[in-house]
């Protein structure tokens, strides 16, 4: 009898331990996913912050450039750089036949002509001289240099030919290949060529969308929250508004995209693909988030504050505007920032309103077509070129960096400025 009891107790204790272990392993799993995730993004993305350059001697032959003696600045602008650019690449291998010369040309980016031009524009005295110029390597060679490219594939399955690899290895051996910090990733707009593609246009697109979103969503949401929390009578209509807000907060984001497409683009005829439309769509999405946060922080202001103000003869509007709302601002602001961070990461609605178009210019206003950071991630992730994989990860790192900063900012506002009532 006694023994039986002890066995039972043991069994129950074991079950207890098992249950505890399940819980612990669940948390462990969740954190493991997070770690794998972050590790994966960083390990594929960090290399995009480096860019490979080929150092190629270029002879600035005035005759090939069709330049006269003592050319003016304008002449230098208009000169023909294609021939000297081509020649300097072909000179890498003096024995190259025509096909091989073509392959040599494809070792650098399409931009090489312009890079050579800029070199001369910076220093016009170079005419007739030879100088080693840094040329952006093609994205495949860039990947080869970073060790991301499987060199052991059969030649017909690679985009880099054996010949190009041979010349490239010679250049590496001579120290004519260099890796430098990739500034153009931050200053260039999108491009079909992975080695030239940058995030500047999508970054500006994101900034403009978020600004439009903030300018619409914040005032409307705060005013709505003040009304619902401080003035609204408790009746069916305000209940209906409340149900609406809670429901909107859980409506899938793509439905807001359909709203933007069906109402903003089709009926109001706003310009497609612009951060203006994107921002308005996002603001409708962020509205419920901010309203809920603002209401919570208004609710947290103790009634004694209101009573004191009313007792001093303030009207209800004065009480609200002079006392309750300022005291609730820290909570509202941090809720707003969190809502904006969500909006910043949103992709699907922006795709539907056309912000997925290929944009190779940097937008100067919310009325110019643009992409946004998450959409840029989508565009690059869908493209087949190997060079874009690391760009996607790098773009994700930039985006995550922004989200982290925004969330930290929200935390700081909350902890530093929010009054603790006890």
């Amino acid at each position, binding site marked *: 009898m006694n023994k039986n009891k002890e066995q039972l107790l043991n069994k*129950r204790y074991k*079950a*207890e331990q098992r*249950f505890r272990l399940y*819980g*612990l392993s*669940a*948390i462990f799993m*969740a*954190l493991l996913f*997070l770690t794998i*995730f972050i590790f*994966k*993004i960083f390990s*594929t993305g960090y290399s995009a912050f480096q860019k490979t350059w080929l150092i190629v001697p270029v002879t600035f032959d005035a005759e090939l450039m069709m330049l006269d003696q003592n050319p003016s600045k304008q002449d230098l602008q208009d000169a023909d750089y294609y021939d000297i650019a081509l020649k300097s690449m072909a000179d890498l291998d003096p024995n190259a036949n025509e096909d091989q010369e073509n392959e040599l040309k494809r070792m650098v980016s399409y931009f090489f002509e312009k890079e050579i031009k800029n070199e001369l524009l910076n220093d016009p005295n170079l005419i007739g001289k030879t100088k080693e110029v840094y040329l952006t390597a093609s994205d495949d060679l860039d990947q080869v240099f970073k060790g991301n490219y499987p060199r052991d594939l059969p030649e017909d399955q690679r985009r880099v030919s054996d010949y190009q690899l041979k010349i490239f290895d010679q250049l590496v051996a001579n120290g004519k290949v260099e890796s430098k910090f990739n500034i153009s990733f931050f200053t260039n707009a999108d491009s079909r060529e992975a080695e030239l593609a940058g995030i500047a246009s999508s970054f500006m697109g994101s900034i403009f969308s978020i600004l439009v979103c903030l300018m619409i969503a914040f*005032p409307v949401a705060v*005013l709505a929250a003040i*009304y619902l929390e401080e*003035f*609204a009578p408790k009746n069916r209509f305000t209940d*209906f*508004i409340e149900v*609406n807000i*809670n*429901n*909107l907060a*859980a*409506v*899938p*984001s*793509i*439905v807001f*995209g*359909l*709203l933007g*497409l*069906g109402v903003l683009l089709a009926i109001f005829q706003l310009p497609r693909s612009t951060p203006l439309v994107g921002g308005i769509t996002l603001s*409708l999405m962020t*509205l*419920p988030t901010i309203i809920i946060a603002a209401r919570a922080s208004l609710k947290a202001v103790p009634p004694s504050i209101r009573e004191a103000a009313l007792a001093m003869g303030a*009207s209800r509007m004065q009480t609200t*505007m002079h006392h309750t709302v300022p005291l609730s601002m820290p909570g509202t602001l941090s809720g707003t920032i969190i809502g904006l961070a*969500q909006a910043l*990461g*949103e*992709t*699907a609605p922006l*795709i*539907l309103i056309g912000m997925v178009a290929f944009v190779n210019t940097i937008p100067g206003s919310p009325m110019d077509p643009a992409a946004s950071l*998450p*959409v840029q*991630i*989508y565009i690059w*992730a*869908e493209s087949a070129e190997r060079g874009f994989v690391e760009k*996607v*990860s790098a773009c*994700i790192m930039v985006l*995550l960096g922004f989200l982290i900063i925004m*969330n930290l900012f929200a935390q700081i506002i909350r902890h530093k400025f929010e009054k603790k009532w006890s």
Partner: protein
Amino acid sequence: MNLILFTFIVLLGFTSYYFGRKKAYTIQSTKKRLTALPQFYGYYLAIWCAIPAFIIFSLWAIFEPTIVKLLILSDYSNQGYLDDELNLLYEKSKALSRGQFTGEITPFIEASAEKYLSLRSVAQSSKVVIVLSAIIASVAYAYKRISSNSRTREPVEKFLNAVLFTASLAAILTTVGIVFSLIFQTIDFFKVIPLFDFVFGTHWYPAKAFVRDSSEALDPTMYSDTFGAVPIFAGTFFIAFIAMCVAIPIGLMSGIYLAEYASTKVRQYAKPLIEILAGIPTVVYGFFAALTVGPFLKELGTSMGLEVSAESALAAGGVMGIMIIPFISSLSDDVITSVPQSLRDGSYAMGATKSETIKRVIFPAALPGIVGSILLGVSRAIGETMIVVMASGLAANLTLNPLESTSTITAQIVVILIGDQAFGDPKTQAAFALGMSLFLVTLCLNIVALRVVKKYREKYE
């Protein structure tokens, strides 16, 4: 131009505020009692400045384009042009006047572009005159009216209250906007495709509808067997099911552990770390699923002799599950912590272990809240877009094999609407019909879930 006018009106508003307050001070200096603080007199005037400006601006924005168009087209209306042609010509001349026109410039377009420009400038200047005179008249009228015993606080506060009330309508307007944008396209869609075919058809090939000429597009027989949404609904629920298989056990167990077992220190760090998972943009999850999980599962499957598609439902659903973990864990954590301590104490007093208390007492007590949180998670899984678009297939297969690729409502909407759309095309309308069904399904889930959670909260508060 509008910006300058707007700035000017704002300046006028400040000036009227200043004059209103000054008048109040003057009244005060004659030893008469004011009925409100001086600034209310200022606000009162500023509102009288803002209201006419707002009304005229909005009327202008609504009517100006139509009137200008009518004036321009009235010259040509009896020359035998069709309405569509006239519209096109009007759009072209508008583009030309903005300098954005690239096509061939005919004398007609040039003339109407010139007329457009002149009409616009007339409209602009008359707008300036009308707005400014209306503002000055209304402010002057209000200025005359205020005296020591006129009420200014009440109207100002009533106005503010009205503004607050209007802002609170934004949520309703958004819902109306959503329904409005979906419903017309959906009705048009069901005029061409019978509802029965949509709900019970098993073939979904919207691309078939796309190649047709728009002039033939109204023949419904062409679309039979093109817009059968069963594979898509099935795929949506299937992927959501896979996601919940990952999210429920992990989310629920970590919620229970955080609420009942974890020390404050562990809770303090683990909870925000898990919530990071909810803050990661979905497009990032999609990339992760497509780049890492998909190929990994494919390799794993090949090594076990299974054929796994690189874009399997399992990869998309699994990653989606990871995304949903924090929703379930933090909601069930909240729900469990709000179960009253007395229930726990009672159970311990009867000699139950902690896990027995959780399983037999707390879990049943918290069940409605937990179900609510799971329903919210399901609604999120059904509405999730980017993971599916990037990691699962785009072809709608009717399958229950998690290793094959399937498609979902959201993915189909994106596939159809990416790039240029022609409204009026059944393919575009199909996307809106899908959006409508998505909205309705998630609406029901949300309302039920929110009601359950609310009922539960009321029970213990």
